[in-house]
């Protein structure tokens, strides 16, 4: 039985419509929801939690229709984007709040508090007020509060967005371990694509108010089912080339690249389309059996373990990810080749071929 199931849910707003949404989260799954900002990701969480009611469709929690359940009876806790810590309470009081509300015994409260503070490394700040804590500490207290309640599922709305880059990386591992060790169901919303892809068992990509794709990070990364998904997954983002398919569907002629690309596309004969190539699938230099062309180097970003090269072809700028440390001259011409096995083709309407 799924922990959470959302069927054909629609929620209408003045500016746009969210849905229809269909998704299910298994018990003990780390489910990520990713999309550009302000596209309804938070609304999905609120629909699960019960703060919002769907205009159409159904939300089920552990098999039961959520419409019949009060918010407090659903057994779901949430970590909000702004944390919503009680400012007049200490860290300790914040964490044990849900337990006290539920009327848990002193012994149980003490036990949960110990467990939670140990896992989240907050024992030394329990006595402080939120105002006296750093951003990272506050985040962990907020997580602790949601966690202490031992709920059926935890919803996290960009919980680590406010932290430093380094701290975020560390917290990611902590969150993942927390989730796995306790076999908790997590629904994690973020607009940081790298974060969601790294941490989730499965990901739902929301674009334009609808779910564009659901799958494991591998699937979504390697086989984006539409242009919309391909555009948002991957840092740096995928490079796109507009063009046309030949009449027999054997070649793709790009407006920008001089050479044609050999493709075998049985469904699309003629017509416009888009070719997508990820930066790491563009290699420096020519390679056997792969289409190659020349580009003009614009800037070079040395990141240590790998290098990102911004290069011009015609009026377009493409990004190339090369392993290791590469020294290239700006404005120099460089030949590159595309990994023919890892090309993504999209038809004119945007779906994958």
């Amino acid at each position, binding site marked *: 039985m799924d922990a959470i199931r959302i069927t054909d849910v629609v929620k209408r707003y003045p500016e746009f419509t969210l849905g229809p949404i269909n998704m299910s989260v298994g018990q003990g799954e780390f489910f990520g929801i990713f999309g550009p900002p302000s596209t*309804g990701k938070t609304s999905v969480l*609120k629909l699960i939690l019960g703060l919002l*009611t769907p205009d159409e469709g159904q939300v089920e929690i552990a098999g039961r229709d959520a419409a019949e359940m009060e918010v407090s009876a659903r057994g779901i806790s949430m970590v909000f984007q702004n944390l919503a810590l009680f400012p007049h309470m200490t860290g300790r009081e914040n964490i044990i709040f849900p337990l006290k509300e539920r009327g848990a015994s002193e012994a149980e409260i003490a036990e949960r508090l110990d467990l939670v503070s140990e896992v989240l490394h907050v024992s030394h700040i329990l006595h402080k007020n939120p105002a006296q804590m750093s951003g990272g500490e506050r985040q962990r207290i907020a997580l602790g509060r949601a966690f202490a309640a031992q709920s059926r599922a935890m919803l996290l709305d960009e919980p680590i967005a406010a932290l430093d880059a380094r701290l975020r990386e560390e917290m990611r591992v902590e969150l993942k371990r927390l989730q796995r060790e306790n076999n908790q169901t997590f629904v994690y919303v973020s607009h940081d694509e790298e974060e969601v892809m790294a941490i989730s068992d499965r990901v739902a990509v929301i674009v334009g108010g609808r779910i564009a794709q659901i799958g494991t990070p591998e699937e979504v990364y390697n086989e984006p089912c539409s242009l919309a998904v391909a555009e948002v997954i991957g840092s740096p983002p995928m490079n796109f080339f507009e063009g046309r398919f030949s009449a027999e569907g054997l070649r793709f002629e790009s407006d920008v690249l001089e050479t044609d690309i050999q493709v075998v596309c049985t469904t699309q004969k003629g017509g416009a389309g888009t070719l997508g190539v990820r930066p790491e699938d563009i290699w420096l230099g020519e390679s056997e059996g792969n289409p190659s062309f020349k580009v003009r180097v614009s800037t070079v970003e040395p990141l240590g373990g790998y290098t990102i090269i911004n290069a011009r072809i015609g009026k377009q700028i493409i990004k190339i990810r090369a392993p290791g440390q590469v020294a290239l001259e700006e404005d120099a011409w460089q030949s590159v080749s595309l990994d023919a096995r890892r090309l993504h083709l999209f038809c004119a309407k945007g779906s994958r071929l």
Partner: protein
Amino acid sequence: MTDHTLTDRQPTDASRGYWQRVARDGDKMGFWFILPTFLLLLFIVIFPLFMQLYLSVTWWTPLEGIPWYSAWEVFNWGENYWFLATDPRFWGALWRTALIMIVAVPAQFLLGMALAYLFIDTFPGRKIFYSILLTPMMIVPAVVGLMFFLLFQGTGPVNAHLGLPAEFSWLTDVNRAMISVIIADIWQWTPLMFLILLAGMLGVPSDQLLAARLLGGSNWQNFVKIILPRMKTVIIIALVLRAVECFKIFDLVYIMTKGGPGVQTETISVFLYKQTFGELEWSYVAAIGLTILIVLSVIAAKGLAYMARKQG
């Protein structure tokens, strides 16, 4: 889309009892909370207003010998208003009141603005000066009237300092009496302008001001281009508020000059006061009162409309 709605849960039918349902429904709850205040407003404002309208189209005064609700017996088809239109005493008072308002309000506005500007940044003693600056506003207007009455006496400190003889009267000469009243009003109410305008100035985001400075803007340029435009709403509030209040000016005038000599320094409120308690012409007063109300409402409405437009 930024989703500002936290929740849109509707009350379910599964709750018994009217009051339980009220507790769940924001709209219903709002109605019951507003009701007491609404009833209060009804009795204190709306009912008297209709009473005033009713009386203003009759000849009724307490001397007629009939209770007020029987005033229809002396119905006069609005002749009071006709009389009003040709009453020189009324127009004189109106003109004088308007004059005071037109001079005093802009003066205290500019003064308040200048003072507020000085108070944006901290400086040593700011807190003390702030308290001192606010005191005039906190003194009972009648007392302020008395203060200036004493100050502007022929034998008083003002004349002494200016080296003027005791015969040089401030309060019995019509023009100079107006000046003294205006000065008193400015003295008393500049602090209010200062307070409101300072709040408006401090509401301007400080990082935008900083950005303006970094771009090379001098203090004056930043004031005119950044602070002032953002204060439009606050300025309107301050001006409308004080203009309406100033129009009703009573305490200062009554205590300093009693409206005299004769009726030559009467303002509308002083005039109404004398008519009400001296000559007992209550229906006439009702008519005047209603007229003034309409005039002031128009001013305030214009101000509110401007603000509403600015809010978008």
